[in-house]
């Protein structure tokens, strides 16, 4: 079945440095939809970014990601981390053959320190 791998469980960095959270996926289907959800402490997880178009950059709230189907990757990036970016980030995959079910990665906890 489908799988999503986020190789970093914990990322700690200093405010102002660039952010890159890795996400790779596996699916036998070509129609993959990739998502990044963000979960701030004491809030509900919510959608941050989504894409299904190969090699097209998608941006939202200062974050960006590009789906690369050739390498099955959808890494999340930001040019300059802010303290308020500290949260749990989930990469998720959907394909039309799975209906509306999402497969989530294990999550990456990002901590930004002053």
């Amino acid at each position, binding site marked *: 079945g489908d799988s999503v791998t986020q190789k970093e469980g914990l990322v700690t960095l200093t405010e102002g440095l660039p952010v890159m959270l890795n996400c790779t996926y596996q699916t036998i289907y070509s129609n993959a*939809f990739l*998502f990044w959800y963000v979960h701030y402490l004491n*809030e*509900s*997880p919510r959608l941050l970014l989504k894409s299904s178009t190969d090699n097209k950059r998608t941006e939202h709230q200062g974050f960006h990601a590009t789906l690369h189907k050739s390498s099955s990757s959808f890494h999340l990036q930001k040019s300059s981390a802010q303290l308020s970016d500290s949260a749990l980030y989930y990469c*998720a995959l959907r394909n039309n053959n799975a209906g*509306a*079910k*999402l497969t989530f990665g294990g*999550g990456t906890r990002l901590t930004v320190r002053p």
Partner: protein
Amino acid sequence: EAAVTQSPRNKVAVTGGKVTLSCNQTNNHNNMYWYRQDTGHGLRLIHYSYGAGSTEKGDIPDGYKASRPSQENFSLILELATPSQTSVYFCASGDPTGDYAEQFFGPGTRLTVL
């Protein structure tokens, strides 16, 4: 704004006891989902539903039952709670139409089984 609410927000149960977690959505979405969140495992799908009266097994259904009595309500039932079911549980709703089928999450229920 459309919303997903969960009750209770916190629950302490005893081993062998019955636990019911409730979810209500005002999004008028056909699909609803129950996940559990555990460090290193991300969000794992327990049960989901396509509409009132339907329930489907997700990836980790053992030890859980679900009930969808109406469009708005979706319950997760632990007939015989065990300490391994200590976790944070999230409910979500989603519109399955359209390419992305974004899911909207509730605030979570923290369950501790002693």
